[in-house]
């Protein structure tokens, strides 16, 4: 019997039992086959449910299980490393009719993925806080700020930080403002911060390898009142700044 034959029957909840299987004594193996089918379905659903804690908190266990069931059916993992499983869930949610009335869920899923990536990201030593102060203004402008591997920026059309706080910490009801987010990992636990206007543009420019002066220009284009020193203080406190590369 080929794996393909077995697999189609295993992945189809209504699938017919392939012939050539028995219970060890020549009897039918229907319930026995169902054990494997159930193991696959339950373990993959469980991986999605535990991998998206914000979605779980927003949807509740029953709805989350339904979503996971629908997702895993068409999206089995493509790697045995399940730490990365579910990267297609945000796009899947964008097209998932039963939850279309909650359009912010896709961004909540993106946030869960970003926090999970941060948790497993490579370790990196931060620069000492005084290193910035030792640079001349000219050198600071030319420097490329290299951020820790865990650092990510998420731009959302929704009050995503408020939504995240509400889901996990019983925060106040979300406001009406769209929020950009910064994900950091000072030690082992990822954290999520709301960014002030312009900060996401600055950080994205840094992540693209642009100099601090260029990044500042992009930030001020978006938000003329952008406050660089407040953002730098946040990055230092979160151990998010690894290197200042100054081109010779």
């Amino acid at each position, binding site marked *: 019997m080929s794996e393909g034959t077995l697999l189609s029957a*295993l992945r189809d909840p209504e699938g017919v039992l392939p012939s050539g299987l028995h219970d060890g004594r020549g009897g039918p193996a229907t319930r026995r086959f169902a054990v494997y089918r159930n*193991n696959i379905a339950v373990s993959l659903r469980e991986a999605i449910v535990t991998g998206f804690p914000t979605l779980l908190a927003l949807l509740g266990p029953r709805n989350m299980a339904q979503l996971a069931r629908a997702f895993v059916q068409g999206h089995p993992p493509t790697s045995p490393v399940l730490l990365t499983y579910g990267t297609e869930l945000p796009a899947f949610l964008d097209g998932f009719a039963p939850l279309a009335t909650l359009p912010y869920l896709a961004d909540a899923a993106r946030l869960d993925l970003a926090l999970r990536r941060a948790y497993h990201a490579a370790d990196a030593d931060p620069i000492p806080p005084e290193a910035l102060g030792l640079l001349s203004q000219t050198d600071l402008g030319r420097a490329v700020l290299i951020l820790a591997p865990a650092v990510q920026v998420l731009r959302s059309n929704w009050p995503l930080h408020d939504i995240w706080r509400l889901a996990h910490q019983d925060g106040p009801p979300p406001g009406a403002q769209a929020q950009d987010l910064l994900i950091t990992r000072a030690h082992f636990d990822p954290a999520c911060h709301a960014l002030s206007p312009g900060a996401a543009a600055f950080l994205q420019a840094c992540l693209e390898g642009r100099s601090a002066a260029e990044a500042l220009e992009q930030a001020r284009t978006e938000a003329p009142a952008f406050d660089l020193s407040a953002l730098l203080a946040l990055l230092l406190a979160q151990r998010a700044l690894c290197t200042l590369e100054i081109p010779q």
Partner: protein
Amino acid sequence: MFDRTAPALPARPGVGFKPQHYEALMADPGPVAWLEVHAENYMGAGGRPLAQLQALAARFPVSVHGVGLSIGGEGPLEHAHLDRLRGLVDHLPAARFSEHLAWSSHGGAFLNDLLPLPYTARTLARVCAHVDQVQQALGRQMLLENPSSYLAFTESEMPETAFLGEVVQRTGCGLLLDVNNVFVSAVNLGFEPRAYIDALPLGAVGELHLGGHDSDSDDQGRPLLIDSHGAPVADPVWALLDHVLSLTGPKPLLIEWDTDVPDWPELRAEAARAALALEAVR
């Protein structure tokens, strides 16, 4: 051919490491003398999982147990995954590497379960080629674990014990003998568990596993045991362990508890019971 300088697993109790036990385990390991980890959970780039593993490996021999290679599969082994495994076992360095007689991937999809294969000349050649490839890639001997089975294939040409014996003989790999799996398969498929044990090349056993199972029933109302790793080790499995140990002498003996994981003292108590079973044959 194989590197034998890595730290050896002692013939004492070990447990499958769970992150929630980290502090309690470090503070009071009790009889636990070594640990096993699932390789795929430590394939991130950094962070807490790898930091904890590093600290554990500094104190205990660590056996790396793969659950994703699909050694019994039709398709080729994934090179990238072999590279990740090599990185992990070299980095620690691992005292042992083990994997399953099962398949879990097909056509680029990973199913996250250990699926059964028929035992034929063709599947034997395939499994041997894959075990050879793993041992070459890792530069060390691997242990192959006997599966827990819920069904059998009409096309099988030989018993599982003969299949495992041939793989051991042709590849030089060792056996990871999961005593609970033998019991689960014996009840499910209707064979005599002691006869199964006696038919294995027991000289090749490098590690023993014990775990808990759940009970269900099949279409005919016969008992169907599920290898859940979510309960204490059952009494008949402890009895079967005594039979194994009477033949093998003391071996590294692991307690696996992966679902409904208890607090540390309960798992440590299972390890203490394993220590008594080992003492009885010293």
